[in-house]
Structures are given as structure tokens and as C-alpha cells.
């Protein structure tokens, strides 16, 4: 048996290190000013994918949608053992909510074409919604298992997995293809030293251009030659735009997102402040008022 495994991963801001300047005046998040990391549970998804490949054979392809800098998590995926990586990037994706995101990812999955198992982290730490996985499964018309702890077996076109439920667990058997969202029930392997040496040179087309001074290098022949060389050494990170994946412009980015942000309020940062409350009725009353005003108490 050989499994075609897709992992959908996300580069996320490290929400534990958000500073006050992380918000723009218009209330959107200033992602450029934030340190970014590989979404933790997506690392668990990748680890599970690599384990499945080791047990059953096959190929692991990691896909991410994000800004050009998100190529960093694809390089890390190669360091861990991924076979192929794809960056979906386009300014037109900006402002996407989970519906527009899952639509975009479904276009990419359809372009890839062959998949038996799709793995995602249970949720990303920037939004904690856990929505994109199930939405992607629906768009591909395949079943989903959520909160997966382990895959027990894959045989005869079926996969058996143990999943968390509220207050317990279920062992579920599902036909392939299937989408799994994965919890942190495994330990993601570290990047391999030899693989780091090998894949640190992996680049997207944009990165290759930038390395050579951008537009000045747009000599089609030279570029094609270098691309060919990199591909031969498996150092090529595919870069797909909205048009490349055949996405309907009305269903991506802001136009494709039904949810709109009306208002953003900053919360005083954890650990950033300390207020001494006097042991008086008035001081405690003020505290309660403050907590109610900030939606902390209702």
C-alpha cells in the first residue's frame, strides 16, 4: 500500500509574545510585527503523516496558505522529512475568514488531485477556531475525524483512528479518503541535521528571484535553468497563486468571507500589568465594574 498524504499547515503569530503594537489602527492584526512559528498542532499533524508514511509507505506533501514568508514552515517540513511542499500565496487571499480559507485550500487539494489522507492540526493558536479542517473536508466531500490521537491501522481502503470526545474517546473506522484533525498526542520529531544541510537551500520562485536581485534577474532562460537544477535536487518549493489553483475571485479573501470584524478591543496583556486592589468595598466594587466592562465577568 502507498498513501498519498497531504498536510495542511499554518504559520501563526506566536500569540504568547504579542505586544501592544501588534494591532494596526484599523483593528486588524499587524502580522508583520509579530514573531511567527509553525502552528504547534500542525507539527503533530506532520509527525503523524511521517509516521503513516513509515508504516504504510507513500508520500507526504505539506501545503500552506500564507504570505511569502510562510515558506519558512515548508522548509522546516522538509527538515522533518516531508517529500514535497507547496506555498499558496496571493495578495488576493488577504482578509480571508475560515470559509474563504477552506475554499482556497480545497482548490489546492483538487489541483494536487490524488490524496488518501489529509491531516491538519486540530486548531491554530491565532484564532483557535478549529473550523478550517471540517470545512475543507466538506468542500472535498469526504468525511472528517476530529481530535485524532492516533491512527491504529490503514488497510483495505479504510482507516481506523482513536479520537477524543467530550469525557472519553471513540475508535472510528472510515473509508478513504478522509481528513483528520490531530491533537498534540505525539512528539514532533526534531529537524534532522543532515536534512537541514540539504534543504536549507530550498526556495520558492519568489525567493529565487529576490536572491538574484528581483526583476533584474527576469531572464527567462536563466531562471528556467536554475529552477530545473533546484527541482532535480528536490530543493523547489512550489508557489501557487489564486489563479494557479483555479480559485473563483469572489470566493477568496475579503469578498469570499461572510464574517466581518465590526470592532476590536485590546485587552490588557497577560503579565503586563499588576494592580493592587485595596480591601475596601469601594475598591472591590470598582474591580467588578472593570471586569464587567471588559466582558470578563458577565
Amino acid at each position, binding site marked *: 500500500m502507498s498513501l498519498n498524504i497531504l498536510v495542511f499547515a499554518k504559520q501563526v503569530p506566536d500569540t504568547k509574545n504579542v505586544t501592544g503594537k501588534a494591532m494596526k489602527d484599523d483593528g486588524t492584526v499587524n502580522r508583520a510585527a509579530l514573531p511567527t512559528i509553525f502552528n504547534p498542532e500542525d507539527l503533530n499533524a506532520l509527525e503523524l503523516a511521517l509516521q503513516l508514511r513509515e508504516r504504510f509507505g507513500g508520500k507526504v506533501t505539506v501545503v500552506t496558505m500564507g504570505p511569502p514568508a510562510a515558506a519558512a514552515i515548508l522548509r522546516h517540513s522538509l527538515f522533518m522529512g516531508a517529500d514535497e511542499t507547496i506555498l499558496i500565496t496571493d495578495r488576493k487571499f488577504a482578509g480571508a475568514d475560515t470559509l474563504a480559507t477552506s475554499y482556497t485550500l480545497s482548490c489546492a487539494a483538487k489541483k494536487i488531485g490524488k490524496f488518501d489522507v489529509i491531516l491538519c492540526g486540530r486548531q491554530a493558536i491565532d484564532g483557535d477556531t478549529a473550523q478550517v479542517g471540517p*470545512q475543507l473536508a466538506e468542500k472535498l466531500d469526504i468525511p472528517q475525524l476530529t481530535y485524532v490521537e492516533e491512527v491504529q491501522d490503514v488497510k483495505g481502503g479504510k482507516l481506523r483512528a482513536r479520537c477524543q470526545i467530550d469525557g472519553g474517546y471513540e475508535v472510528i473506522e472510515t473509508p478513504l479518503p478522509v481528513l483528520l484533525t490531530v491533537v498534540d498526542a505525539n512528539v514532533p520529531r526534531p529537524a534532522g541535521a543532515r536534512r537541514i544541510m540539504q534543504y536549507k537551500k530550498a526556495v520558492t520562485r519568489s525567493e529565487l528571484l529576490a536572491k538574484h536581485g528581483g526583476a533584474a534577474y527576469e531572464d527567462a532562460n536563466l531562471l528556467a535553468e536554475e529552477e530545473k537544477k533546484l527541482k532535480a535536487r528536490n530543493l523547489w518549493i512550489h508557489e501557487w497563486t489564486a489563479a494557479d489553483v483555479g480559485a473563483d475571485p469572489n470566493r477568496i479573501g475579503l469578498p469570499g468571507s461572510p464574517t466581518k470584524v465590526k470592532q476590536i*478591543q485590546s485587552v490588557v496583556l497577560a503579565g503586563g500589568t499588576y494592580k*493592587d486592589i485595596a480591601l475596601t468595598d469601594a475598591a*472591590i466594587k470598582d474591580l467588578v465594574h472593570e471586569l464587567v466592562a471588559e466582558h470578563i465577568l458577565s
Partner: protein
Amino acid sequence: MSKKTIGNVWVFIEQDGGKIADVSLELVCKGRDLADQLGTKVEAVLLGDSVKALCPTLFSYGVDNVFLAEDPNLKHYSPVPFTKIVIDLIKKHKPNIFLFGASVVGRSLAPRVASKQLAGLTADCTDLRIDSFEDKASGKVLPNKLMQIRPAFGGNIIATIVNSWDDPQMVTVREGVMKMTEPQPDRKGEITTVKVELDAADCLVAIIERFKEEKSVNLKGAQIIVSGGYGMGSAAGFALVKKFAEAIGGQVAASRAAVDAGWIDHDHQVGQTGVTVRPRLYIACGISGSVQHRAGMAESAKIIAINSDANAPIFSIAHYGIVGRVEDVLPKFIKAYKSRA
């Protein structure tokens, strides 16, 4: 043409083994509140195997009509058949608002339904209100929209989200966020029986094994936690923590010292050898704040420390500190909370 009538407020009812999940009843109560503001009905969507007996409970909490779908294939949740039935109901009856618990089931079903319906879905709302919304894209002012308020970025911001597309406006809400109101046992409602039409292709995902036990407490999902430590002094002293938690709508937790003293059982223990919690508000009462305890609660969005020892380490990670005896502080807090505007 008559004016477009506004759809009803729907609540997805999660049940297991003949028991309705608390979060579903909490959402019925919130749904009642929203429906009263909008002048619509509250309708429940109940799927299961032989679950009709649950309807009177739903009526007593404020449901006007239950869409009841019963079938052996619906005994336990499975995304494909559940989505199919829910989508058929939405297309036929066009609800305005649809509330789901942010449980494992709700977080699987709601996104799948939203994707199929091309509806907006906001996860883990901590507050829901009715207000008007000016859609900058179209320049139109939309009256009576659902304001979906939720924390984001690890609790660093609070966002108000609005669904600017067609209905339903879908949200998930965690257990314990909305308050349950007193049921009215005499309250009546209707039952609309749903014809279940599933074919073999809808039911290919099989549950091979299932284990579930009733949790005595769900600290992981709690938004407000009141936690007591050794400083409560005695079992009787610890009862004050419980009273305080009840008063402000929080869950009771404890440090290991309080559990080891036998004042409360281990299910309530927060810390390295207990549960890790990330509530919106954690109130530490008489807890010194050992490294082990802090490991289980340091990521709480807001921490209030109450301790008679001004040098207790708990104050170093607290946002608000009250130095004083717990038995002096808590009654003042309860009084202030009860008289809040």
C-alpha cells in the same frame, strides 16, 4: 412583495445516552433571550435514536418547537449524516441565527454545516448581542444583526464579528459561558417530526469502540474559575470558595494542597498533576502559587490573587491582587458582583 420575515433562532441540541449537554440548555436560554429581542421563536434541532422524551425539558428552558429527527444511525454523532439532516432543515425553514456548543461535536458539525451552506461561523463566542451593523462593503445599515463577541490572539484582543451574508448567522459557544435560567416545567412547545432519509453512502463511518464517562467537572472548558488553596484553612472554609463560584457563575477548582487535605476531589485539581486551564478569569483564593500550580493556570487571560501573605508568588503572575484574608475579601466581592450595573 411582503417584507422579508425574519427567521427563527435555532439551537443544536447535543445529547448523549438520553441526557442533554449543559451547553445546549445554556444556549437555549441565550437563544430565548435573543429571540425575545427579535420577536421570533426559539427552535431546537434534536437528532438521536429515541430521544423524543427530551423535548419537555427543552420546552421548559424556552424552546417553542423541536425539530426531532430519530433514527438508529443518529444514535451517536457522525459528521456526514448529521450535516445532511441539518442542511435539509436549514434550506427548508431558513433560520436567522443558529447556535452550537463549542464542544467536540459542535466544533465538527457547525463548520461542516457552515461550509455547505456558505454561511459565516464564529467560534467560541463569549457574548452575543443584537445590534445594527453598517456594512462598509455595501454601504447598507443592517438592523438586528447578531454581534458575535469573542476573544482572539490568545485572549489579547476582543473582537466583535458580524455575519454580513445571508442567514443563518452561525456561532459556537463554550460550555459555561452562557447562564442557564430556571426552567418552567409547565411550559409547552411543539414537536416537528423530521423524516430521516439516509442512504448507505451517508453512513460509512463506523464507531468501533466508545468510552465516555460523566465528568464531575469540566475545568478545561470553563471561562471563569474560582480556585481554593490551603489558605482556605478547612473544609468549612473551602465551602466559601464554592459559594463564591456559584455567585459569579464560575467553576470550582483547587490547588493540590486543598485536594490532598481532602476538601475537594482530584477532578478539580489545577496544576501540573491536575488539569491545565486557560479561562477568561482565574481567581486564586488562598493559593500561594507554587511553580506546579502556576503551570496549570498561568495562561489564564486574567488572574486575581487573594492571599493574606503579600509575598506569595501567586501575586507575581496576577493582574489584580488583594492582600487580605479570604474570608474578608470574598463576601465583599459577592456583594459587589450582586450590585453590579
